[in-house]
């Protein structure tokens, strides 16, 4: 880690930025200083105001008050074009690429016309060689991995010679190896004097990469620090403003009976551009958490759908719960198998919960049959409300009451309610997909603890997640899903992040691409 480069004039300085949306102040008097060549982390929980601030810097949004200084001069950006002219480049979390076009065509679409003159492909090759971003201008985008696609976005930015590069959660779609490659590039840029504003909530990454960090909470800057001198835990506490309790679990391997088993399961995806499941095998025993790692879009959604019963499979016996074949049973019957099945889908609003419906109605949604909230087809409102109140109390969901709609809750609180709704039913088998996606750190900790506790009490928990940190924290065993195939599960203490990363990238233990499409 190099010391922060110092010159007198900061490249970017924000003074007292305030931006309010109806009902919420997204940024309140935010000030920030980025020096030339500095890698500056912008750290905060979801909803802390990072995106709003960045949109202002990139000219997408205007602030209500406050000013922006560029190389010491006050500037007002009308639009992203003005920002780009100034030297601001941004790599968004979601790529804007056309699959059916080549790398070069995609790049030429996203930059100002004068840059496309002359031999673009030569310049792409130059830049990619210079910064260690291997990229073939003639390849079609649909043949590239996610990491390679991100390189296109980075190269597109670099072609415009930025002096400030903004990166929004760049590593959320990358394998650990790809992250390391990206960091090399970013350090290289920093050495050349390019400032980098790096947005993330992955604290370990920030510790290894960033020179300084600005921490935001609820729209305000609450701390500035040097990540090198902090621990991930201390930064997380600054982010949340409270002391963090990490989940506790026993590491012992369980020899409990198999409660959930998937055997030689093949299932075609029901989605466009989906991933088919190919001879998937897995066993989850009573008393354990089985973690399934994988990069987004490798069959997690499809696996979840066949497990919830939203998609039925051809052979009933390819999925068994407590010995009962359930592959042909719909969600209602499936939830009632054994001592019950708890299911938490990825999307909170619109899948796990109905946004405009009250909390008690959303509790009723999945608990109607098992908690006997229904009598001859009639909804038992009293019992349903009592059930929802129990969930709210046990899982400390912050809400004025169970008659309020689901979309009035923050993401973390709603997720606690949805997870709680399933766990209060005391199921024997629990399947969760991305249980803490977009959830604040405090709620994340309590959700993870709840899952571990359920396993300790004898339930079989299957956790599918893209968050490796999470999986290592809660799982007894870990498997990897890649292109619809599942690797053998390994005891969590016997595998390293690197090994999991290779499996996520589809590289087998022998170092070769395990399967080519």
């Amino acid at each position, binding site marked *: 880690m190099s010391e922060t480069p110092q010159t007198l004039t900061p490249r970017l300085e924000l003074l007292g930025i305030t931006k*309010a949306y*109806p*009902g*919420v102040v997204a940024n309140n008097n935010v000030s920030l200083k980025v020096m030339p060549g500095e890698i500056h982390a912008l750290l905060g929980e979801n909803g802390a105001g990072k995106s709003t601030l960045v949109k202002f810097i990139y000219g997408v949004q*205007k*602030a*209500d*008050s406050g000013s922006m200084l560029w190389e010491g001069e006050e500037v*007002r950006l*009308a639009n992203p074009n*003005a920002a780009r002219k100034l030297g601001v480049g941004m790599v968004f979390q979601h790529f804007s690429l056309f699959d059916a076009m080549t790398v070069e065509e995609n790049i030429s679409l996203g930059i100002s016309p004068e840059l496309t003159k002359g031999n673009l492909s030569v310049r792409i090759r130059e830049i990619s060689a210079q910064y260690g971003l291997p990229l073939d201008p003639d390849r079609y985008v649909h043949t590239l991995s996610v990491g390679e696609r991100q390189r296109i976005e980075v190269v597109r930015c670099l072609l415009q010679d930025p002096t400030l590069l903004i990166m929004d959660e760049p590593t959320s779609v990358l394998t650990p190896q790809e992250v390391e490659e990206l960091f090399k590039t970013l350090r290289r840029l920093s050495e050349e004097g390019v400032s980098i504003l790096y947005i993330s909530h992955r604290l370990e990454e920030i510790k290894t990469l960033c020179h300084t960090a600005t921490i935001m909470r609820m729209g305000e800057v609450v701390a500035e620090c040097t990540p090198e001198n902090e621990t991930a835990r201390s930064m997380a506490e600054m982010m949340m403003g409270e002391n963090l309790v990490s989940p506790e679990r026993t590491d012992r391997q369980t020899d409990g009976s198999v409660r959930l088993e998937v055997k030689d399961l093949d299932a075609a995806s029901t989605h466009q551009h989906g991933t088919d499941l190919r001879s998937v095998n897995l066993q989850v025993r009573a008393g354990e958490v089985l973690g399934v790692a994988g990069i987004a879009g490798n069959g997690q959604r499809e696996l979840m759908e066949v497990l*919830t*019963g*939203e998609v039925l499979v051809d052979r009933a016996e390819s999925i068994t719960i407590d010995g009962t074949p359930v592959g042909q049973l*719909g*969600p*209602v*019957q*499936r*939830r009632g198998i054994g001592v019950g099945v708890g*299911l938490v*889908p990825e*999307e909170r*609003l*619109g*899948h*796990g*919960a*109905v*946004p*405009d*419906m009250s909390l008690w*109605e959303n509790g*009723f*949604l*999945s608990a*109607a049959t098992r908690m006997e909230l*229904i009598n001859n*087809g*009639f*909804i038992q*409102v009293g019992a349903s409300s009592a059930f929802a109140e129990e969930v709210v109390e046990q899982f400390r969901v912050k809400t004025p009451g169970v008659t309020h709609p689901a979309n*009035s809750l923050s993401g973390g609180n709603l997720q606690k309610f949805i997870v709680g709704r399933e766990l209060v039913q005391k199921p024997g088998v629990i399947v969760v997909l991305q249980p803490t996606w977009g959830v604040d750190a405090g709620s994340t900790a309590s959700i993870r603890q709840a899952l571990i506790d359920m396993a300790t009490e004898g339930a079989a928990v299957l956790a599918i997640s893209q968050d490796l940190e999470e999986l290592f924290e809660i799982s007894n065993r870990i498997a990897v899903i890649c292109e619809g195939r599942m690797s053998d599960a390994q005891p969590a203490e016997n595998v390293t992040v690197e090994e999991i990363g290779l499996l996520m990238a589809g590289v087998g233990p022998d170092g070769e691409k395990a399967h080519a499409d």
Partner: protein
Amino acid sequence: MLIRLEQRPEASNIMVYVSPLIAVVLTILTAMIMFGALGVDPAKAIETFFIEPVSTLDGVAELLVKATPLVLIGVGLSLGFQANVWNIGAEGQLVIGALAGGGLALAFYGQSSTLLVPAMLVCGVIGGMAWAAIPAWMKTRFNTNEILTSLMLTYVGLLVLSYLVHGPWKDPEGQNFPESRLFHDSALLPILIDETRLNVGWLLALFVVVLGWILMSRHIIGFQIKVIGMAPMAGAFAGFKENRLIWITLLISGGCAGLAGVIELSGAIGQIVPSISPGYGFTAIIVAFLGRLHPVGVLFAGLLMALTYLGGDSAQITMNLPNAVTGVFQGMLLFFLLASDVLIRYRVRFGPPRVKAEAAE
């Protein structure tokens, strides 16, 4: 001065109920301007349109007679609309239901059984359901668009009616008029108030309102309808079957329309004529939305829309205004309602934006 729409942080619950009232007021104001332009005294015209028709007992009874089919069909449609099942063909289902019930009346002509009227009502419901079952089957089987199929079947239904009254069911002693025989007394719905046309059909409509209310607020079917309509993925997650709800909502709305048809026939008209309904099946779409897709709201909206029919008649008779005034009223009402609904999620702000930073190139 700038007028802007600003998104509300949360949808306004009050505006859900105030917006129909705003729509009614705007409709009346616009109508007054329209009357003024036509050279008629606006105040007088409004009085003729809205007050005069219900100033007598007979007028009130007529209002309820006209409201009966609108409320019945409106309740049925509102269930489907909440599940995003768009049955636009209630008019056709009304006609087929009326023919099923009316056919029974003709078949048992002259037999005085107390069972005849209930049997006719049941046939009406079945007829309407059968006609709605066609789009339901096509949608669940071939994924056809029920808006198109149900609408097109309306015209088929009207042609069936036309064929029957011009052919097989024509009154043999009717001097070749395209009408059936007058129903025998035993095929007529009991009248509630003497000297008026108000019949037990109105009570049936009120009963259906209560049933619809209970179904939507307390029954699992209503819950499923709402979930599928608001968040289909959450419905799938909970295990609700969308196809089953398509069938249920189309059968209920078709049954309600069929019931409305047979009530209109045996309660208000008393024979099968070439035009059974002045477009109740289509007007009921407006009724359903004006009533916020809520059975009780539909009840009030049905009464209001019935009044526009009566008002149109009375304006035609006493002020020589064209009958199209009714259609204009109904159209304006729906137009203003949809416009006012913006206020549920947005509020109007006067003055410049609060954002101070100016755009600078």
